[in-house]
């Protein structure tokens, strides 16, 4: 991440938090029509897809993760697209935005990725439910940072939001941020469990006030994960926070983004709602595991003019 000044946070401004309201129907209408309002074709589409790759937090978060598949993931993160395709596209080396794993594999990833510049992100704080003892959650963050994680994806306590206990959410987030030290912190809101879009907006604001560097939609484990309406609400809050404080907060949709077209929709949304700065990896990440393989096929189609197949691209 190359933000010059990290988010310093603000005191908890309850009046501001509570003034945030969201009209669901209007948001859904905007989200539904946005992909029809903008599109990118041909060389532009190829370039945008490459950018999407640069913004992927290539992720594995499974109970059966082991050193071998984590290693496979790291090598893919460093080589996300077949070299011949990149050559045909006239593009040099590209790599993903980060890899994202459980604490257990942080040290492995740091070793595999050393010298690549690819940051290692660790999900933390009792991911995905976030209901382990508070001290343990802080300790988990510190352990990952000690193992070399550059980014920590924390989960918030959903009940603080559902009970409108903004003070508790603010304090929790602030403590997580402090525990992260120099590592950047992404606040996972678990939007699919917050009940209303207004709650999503308010939780976004509180986490930013408490110092989150990124706000992230989901763990990928909720019944509903990233959606364009959630993204729209969160990006609008990021815009609002930027207007009020000058701090640029990043956004990470995660869970359910599997197609190249979806990744373009999110990139378009970032540009329309926040501007070109937020189309770069320091302010935009897509949490995904299978998305990359669809993008690779689309890129090959652009290069050859023929539809591609999964087995033509290395798995990660």
């Amino acid at each position, binding site marked *: 991440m190359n933000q010059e000044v990290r988010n310093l946070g603000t005191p908890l401004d309850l009046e501001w938090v509570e003034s945030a*309201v*969201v*009209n*669901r*129907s*209007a*948001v*859904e*209408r*905007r989200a539904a*029509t946005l992909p*029809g*309002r*903008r*599109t*990118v*074709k*041909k*060389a*532009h589409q*190829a*370039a*945008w897809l*490459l*950018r999407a790759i640069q913004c992927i937090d290539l992720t594995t978060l499974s109970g059966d993760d082991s050193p071998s598949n984590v290693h496979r993931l790291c090598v893919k993160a460093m080589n996300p697209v077949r070299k011949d395709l990149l050559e*045909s*596209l*006239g*593009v*040099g080396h590209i790599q993903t935005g980060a890899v994202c794993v459980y604490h257990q594999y942080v040290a492995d990833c740091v070793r595999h990725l050393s010298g690549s510049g690819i940051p290692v992100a660790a999900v933390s704080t009792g991911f995905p439910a976030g209901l382990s003892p508070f001290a343990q959650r802080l300790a988990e963050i510190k352990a990952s940072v000690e193992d070399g994680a550059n980014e920590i994806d924390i989960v918030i306590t959903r009940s603080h939001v559902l009970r409108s206990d903004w003070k508790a959410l603010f304090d929790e987030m602030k403590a997580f941020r402090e525990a992260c030290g120099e590592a950047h912190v992404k606040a996972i809101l678990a939007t699919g469990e917050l009940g*209303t879009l207004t709650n999503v907006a308010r939780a976004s604001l509180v986490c930013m006030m408490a110092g989150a560097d990124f706000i992230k939609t989901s763990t990928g484990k909720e019944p509903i994960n990233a959606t364009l309406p959630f993204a729209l609400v969160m990006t*609008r809050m990021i815009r609002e926070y930027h207007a009020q404080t000058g701090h640029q907060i990043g956004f990470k949709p995660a869970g359910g983004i599997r197609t190249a077209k979806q990744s373009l929709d999110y*990139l378009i949304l970032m*540009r*329309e709602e926040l501007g*070109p700065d937020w*189309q770069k990896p320091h302010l935009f990440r897509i949490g995904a595991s299978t998305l990359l393989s669809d993008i690779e096929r689309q890129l090959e189609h652009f*290069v050859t003019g023929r539809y591609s197949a999964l087995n033509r691209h290395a798995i990660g």
Partner: protein
Amino acid sequence: MSNVSDILNELDYGTAPEADKIAIEWLESKSRRFGHFIGGTWTSPEETFATSNPANGVELAQIAQGTEKDVSQAVETARAAYPQWSAMPGSHRARYLYAIARQIQKHSRLFAVLETMDNGKPIRETRDLDIPLVVRHFYHHAGWANLSDSEFDGYESVGVCGQIIPWNFPMLMLCWKIAPALAMGNTVVLKPAEFTSLTALLFAEICERIGLPAGVVNIVTGDGETGKALVAHSGVDKIAFTGSTEVGKHIRRATASTAKKLSLELGGKSPYIVFEDADLDSAVEGLVDAIWFNQGEVCCAGSRLLVQESIAEKLYAKIRARMINLRVGDPLDKATDIGAVVDETQLTRISGLVEQGVQEGAEIFQPKCEFPAGGCFYPPTLLTNVEPASTVAQVEIFGPVLVAMTFRTPSEAVTLANNTIYGLASSVWTQNLDTAHDIAAQIKAGTVWVNSTNLFDASVGFGGYRESGFGREGGREGLFEYLKPSLPSVEPEPLPQVTESAGSATGLDRTHKLYIGGKQARPDSGYSTVLPLVSGGSLEIARGNRKDVRNAVEAADSACASWAATTGFNRSQILYYLAENLEAARDVFIKSLADRAAKNPENEFNLSVERILWYAAWADKYEGGVHHPPVRAHVYTRPEPLGVAGVVSPAAPGLLGYLSVCLPLVAMGNAIVSVPSAHNPLPALELVRILEASDVPAGVWNLVTGSFDEVTVPLASHDGVAALWYFGEDDATPLIDSSAGNLKQTWCPGNLDFAVKPSTEFLRRATQVKNVWVPYGV
């Protein structure tokens, strides 16, 4: 491919052109030269004019200029096709409408591309909005055709409909006109706008392909002269027009002396109200759909932004930021938000009005835009520091220009919103349920969109209040524009002439005054007209004049808001009490009827009391409903009173006739200025005392006696009167003609038989439909 690397740095959008190949091929297949579609065949064009692509000025085709002869020929074939088409079972007509829907769907991209090329609107809109709405409209009305035989008892088709549509939504306006007309069994002569005839001609080809009987749909192209010929043609039973208020008024006058049914969907300056508790980001996005949709060339565009003062600057900043992201340019590019203005003349009008606004003190904001060469483009524009007295706040600009004003309280928002000659649509943004419904009820407009804007559907009527026109398009309410009620009429029997009294007057002299604002008033003129009475002596009728009319309208205007807002139950209680008090005065009335030689005074009196009870019953039962468009929203329909209504009663039956025409208006919440027949005013005059005794609020029911010229004509021309019902015996042409000043609704159904059970047509006429869209979702 080497530039992928450069693009990766900048990540700009690039271009995404929609192919025009198939549309061009279609034009070429017609040699880019079109005749009219009359009687199922194509005429060979003689005099033609060019239609061109406003985005680049390139000519697309030559279109036939319709002459009077062409129009006559089209009307005659429509007339010839009418008997068979109207007599056809609704289920058969439904099959044709269904086929049209299917055909348009199967060629939807061709329609969309052609529309974009001819009109200049973005392909996103024609592809995602216009054409899908057109298809939905035909499907929906195929259904209505199916139901037409069973659902509209007491109504029949109108005949040949002359339909004139504008250039801003060429296909959508075509389907709003043709689908309901055909469904209800009418035949059609449609004139598309001269700038945008191509999709109507493609539509004609579809009519041909599905084997629509010849003459049912005729398309005659041309300019305003062609339209004029269609309006003037005596073989046309109904004119439906969408366009400017100015032309609408011409048409009102031009059809005044005819029995042509008329519906007008005209201009607007629709308010877009944002309260401080609204979702502001969504309200800003809504504005994009309100005023930067279709280049702002939308009759119901949310062009007048009313913002609560507390959030005005914050909202303006958000709007400006959003405007910078709007992409103006090639309409065929899939990522264009604002395309080309339809024509150079329109571009000149827009820029002229904006300049005037700036001269009058408006602050202007326009993002920097680069336009393609050779086209008619205008940037999205925000004018702040505008007040109601500014020209740009009053005049319909019909371009991508938003004017903004502030309000302090909800009631001030309503006052500002209603401070216009128009009443087509409005948007209300608030998260508060109470605010939303309260404001929606008070806005004088045919459509209110809560937390949304520019939503349309075939199942929901669309149309205006005030000078935005009358009639609805869409939904059940829209079908009545293409139906006429079968109201039983009676030949007017010559009034028994009472030339002299049977004896001389006995007892005390009686004075009948005017009844204005709940008080009996002497006429301004100081004159009376004398009518002899059968029982002896004479009746002196106050000779009202234009000043009495003015006073009566003033009184009605003061009373109408609270009368409209009172509950239907309260209105019904007052009417029941009126019936009670009339019954108690039975003898007086039977004598007054006999005094002007009524044929059967007792029977008329009994029917009169029944008539009051009838409308007392209806007062709290003529209800709206809920439409179900295919979105997550409640759309509720409110039949609202028109406001101040003028009503002139028939000469006979004196009491029953007077009550039959006044009561539906009053029961539905209108305040009336009634003019009893000059030949037979006595029963109405006697009724004043009953009204006074029955708690009818002052100003709700006014009565002015006097002549056609001195009272009725000034009433018909009064711009504060929303409707005029005329049941008198004189030719109504001057009344309809002078009603054009404010486009009041007129109803002159001739000699009706009032002894029969009243048709609900009276209630329908006494109200106007407002549709309130309330999307919901937590």
